[in-house]
């Protein structure tokens, strides 16, 4: 059945949102669906944003009823987030970051971290599925005449920096939620689509062929960069995404925590002891104080009050303050220092034994991450694992996205720093594309992209943001203490479009029937001209990033267990936008004998050794 709507879903680390546009109607404008959610026990309200938190009720609690389910034992949204401060072991937050973290088995029950025994842990995939399922239920409840999201065309956004495995798992969660017509879209692209939608046809007067847009997206939990070129295409203006950055687990929540730490330190020095609850409340209060200081330049300090936990509000409350100078020192200088173009984020070696935890960025300076990104993709500096594309050009325009960048002072700092770099290199300053509604732009842009797919507007081209390689051990005699060198065989070149196949690499790999064979798997966002089949014997540091390994099992059906089969690996990009790797038998015993390779199996690069 043909879909009535295109749905854009921003499945965010801290917040999710849903926008929709009617297909074929007279009015094809994008609107945002307010999402029904539990806001307190027994209270349900509609909000434009759904906090991406999942809470599991304890047996002592009544059902977490919603208008569509009176017996529910878990909830998603505002109440779940509120319970996160009160009973953290029962709450899943940042499911999306876990979904992209190869250090754990993302299909195994490992969330919430530190869950009590009465609670059955679920996998990051299932947690993502439950968030999507809630959006589906809210859609059904809000528009009973329009059926289910499974009947609609769904565009689901992912960070541009998500690798093939994380994209696969996102689709797996979407399919589990019943979204049969789902397509993935990179978030920075969605932000640009939202900007186009908002400007109508006027956007063409803001961008000219030859412009290069730097999209800076700083959300609650992640930071994402992309470069999108405006190009001449059959006589009119086209857009092409040319580069994406690394996955950086750094966002607005880190900033609030940093300020809470500063104020908490001061309070401790004054002899005021804070418990865990008050520390949580402090981060919350600091966010409010920060927003006031950032939006009103005349304020020098804002009081931060931690209400007492008891019913006596007066007497037990703790009063601190957040000063402008602290915000400037810790927020501006800590997260957005005006660094030189040559600065790079510090990489802290990970300790040998770490607790199960997310690989947060070890350098908080977003401007340093930006410098590294531009060095690789825009400034073509050979020393920094630069892109091998000859098309390294500096950005000419900036588009901001994400709640953090609502603050003028932070945007100004980013613009000034970037323009300083550009000036130093003799390039023209970049101008800012004015965006609105930085919280909802990604969902809106995703819905607009749904319309674009029906020919209603201009499509950003780009294809896959990485080239992919499998690791092959070179044949050499075993030497004690020496690992055999690994070569990287390119199976999927950079920039593969949806629905296309890569050339079949000539190299053969050998697989034993009935036994799982794992391969090391690599991605590169900088090597853009390796064709499928090329073999890298060495590469510069940072040029190839090791991804969770991939696994191939040939079922014994039709072949004898223990047989060795020669295969070729072929990559294709599905219509959904996920990478598909298949092993094709070199000497098939039936017509078109091929096996699908499992991406993102288990264990990250760090734990596979």
């Amino acid at each position, binding site marked *: 059945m043909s879909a009535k709507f295109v749905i854009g879903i921003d499945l965010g680390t801290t917040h999710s949102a849903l926008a929709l546009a009617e297909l074929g109607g007279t009015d094809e404008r994008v609107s945002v669906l307010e999402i029904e959610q539990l806001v307190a026990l*027994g209270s349900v309200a509609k909000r434009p944003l759904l906090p991406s938190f999942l809470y599991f009720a304890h047996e002592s609690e009544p059902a977490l009823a919603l208008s569509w389910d009176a017996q529910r034992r878990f909830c998603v949204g505002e109440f779940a987030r509120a319970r996160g401060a009160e009973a953290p072991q029962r709450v899943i937050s940042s499911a999306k970051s876990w979904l992209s973290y190869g250090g754990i088995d993302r299909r195994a029950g490992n969330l919430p971290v530190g869950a009590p025994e009465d609670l059955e842990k679920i996998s990051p995939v299932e947690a993502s599925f439950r968030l999507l399922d809630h959006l589906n239920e809210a859609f059904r409840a809000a528009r009973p005449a329009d059926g289910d999201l499974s009947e609609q065309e769904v565009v689901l956004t992912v960070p541009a920096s998500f690798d093939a495995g994380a994209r696969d798992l996102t689709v797996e969660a979407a399919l589990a939620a019943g979204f049969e017509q789902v397509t993935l879209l990179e978030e920075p692209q969605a932000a640009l689509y939202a900007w186009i939608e908002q400007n109508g046809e006027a956007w063409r007067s803001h961008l000219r062929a030859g412009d290069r847009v730097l999209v800076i997206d700083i959300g609650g939990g992640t930071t994402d960069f992309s470069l999108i070129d405006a190009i001449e295409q059959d006589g009119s203006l086209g857009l092409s995404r040319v580069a994406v950055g690394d996955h950086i687990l750094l966002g607005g929540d880190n900033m609030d925590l940093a300020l809470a730490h500063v104020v908490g330190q001061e309070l401790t020095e004054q002899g005021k002891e804070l418990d865990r609850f008050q520390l949580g409340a402090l981060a919350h209060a600091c966010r409010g104080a920060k927003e006031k200081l950032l939006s009103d330049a005349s304020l020098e300090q804002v009081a931060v009050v931690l*209400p007492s936990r008891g*019913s006596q509000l*007066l007497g037990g409350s703790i009063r601190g303050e957040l000063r402008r100078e602290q915000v400037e020192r810790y927020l501006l200088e800590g997260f957005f220092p005006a660094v030189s173009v040559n600065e790079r984020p510090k990489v802290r070696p990970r300790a040998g034994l770490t607790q199960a935890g997310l690989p947060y960025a070890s350098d908080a300076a977003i401007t340093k991450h930006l410098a590294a990104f531009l060095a690789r993709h825009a400034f073509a500096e050979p020393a920094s694992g630069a892109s091998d594309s000859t098309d390294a050009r500096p950005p000419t325009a900036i588009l901001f996205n994400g709640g953090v960048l609502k603050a003028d002072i932070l945007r100004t700092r980013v613009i000034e720093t970037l323009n300083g770099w550009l000036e130093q290199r003799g390039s023209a300053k970049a101008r800012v594309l004015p965006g609105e509604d930085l919280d909802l732009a990604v969902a809106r842009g995703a819905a607009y992209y749904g319309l674009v797919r029906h020919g209603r507007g201009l499509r950003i081209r780009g294809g896959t943001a990485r080239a992919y390689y499998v690791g092959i051990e070179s044949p050499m005699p075993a030497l004690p203490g020496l690992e055999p060198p690994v070569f990287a065989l390119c199976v999927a070149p950079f920039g593969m479009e949806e629905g296309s196949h890569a050339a079949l690499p000539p190299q053969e790999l050998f697989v034993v029937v009935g036994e799982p064979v794992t391969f090391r798997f690599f991605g590169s966002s900088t090597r853009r001209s390796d064709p499928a089949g090329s073999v890298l014997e060495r590469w510069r540091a940072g040029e190839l990033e090791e991804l969770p390994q991939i696994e191939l099992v040939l079922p014994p059906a039709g072949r004898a267990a223990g047989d060795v089969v020669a295969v070729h690996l072929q990559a294709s990009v599905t219509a959904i936008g996920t990478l598909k790797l298949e092993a094709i038998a070199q000497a098939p015993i039936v017509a078109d004998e091929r096996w699908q390779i499992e991406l993102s199996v288990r264990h990250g690069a760090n734990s596979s050794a």
Partner: protein
Amino acid sequence: MTVTSLPLLSRFWLSWLTSFRILFDGRFAANVAMLRDGDAPSESKPPAPLPLEVREVPRQDRAPASADGALQLLALLQREGRFVDFVQQELASFGDAEIGAAARVVHEGCRRAIRQHARVVSVRNEAEGASLTLERATEDVKLVGNVAGSAPFRGVLRHRGWRVEELALPTVVGAHDPTLVAPAELELS
């Protein structure tokens, strides 16, 4: 429900709450009117308030629905802004600095809660203190001072007034005790 005399603060709260509802909820206003007619002390019977939709209101379904809404609003203000804690506490022994610190918590939270669930706008947009001529008396402007004569009325705007243009309290789901505006908290270690 046994009716006892309410403490002053509760009465203050109730009057604030009901004044809005009387203005914007015709049915509630009618109920208040009946209550006022029925239970008013007999010595001085005031003129009956405007009979707004009085005839349409069935007597039996008055109290429960409105009480739930009020309780819900109280729970909301407590949750977001510790309103009940603040109002229930005696202030006499505290200094202005401490009261000020608490007021910030209450103000910030209650403001957020109100803004999230209601749209409150000024009745008049003129600056307070400005001269104003009213062509005819309307419900949304209360005449004070030398109240006499007939329209047009000339005077100075003292208070701009407030009007709730939209009110969307959360929907109540499940069987929960609405009088529990804040449950007790027991921390397990």
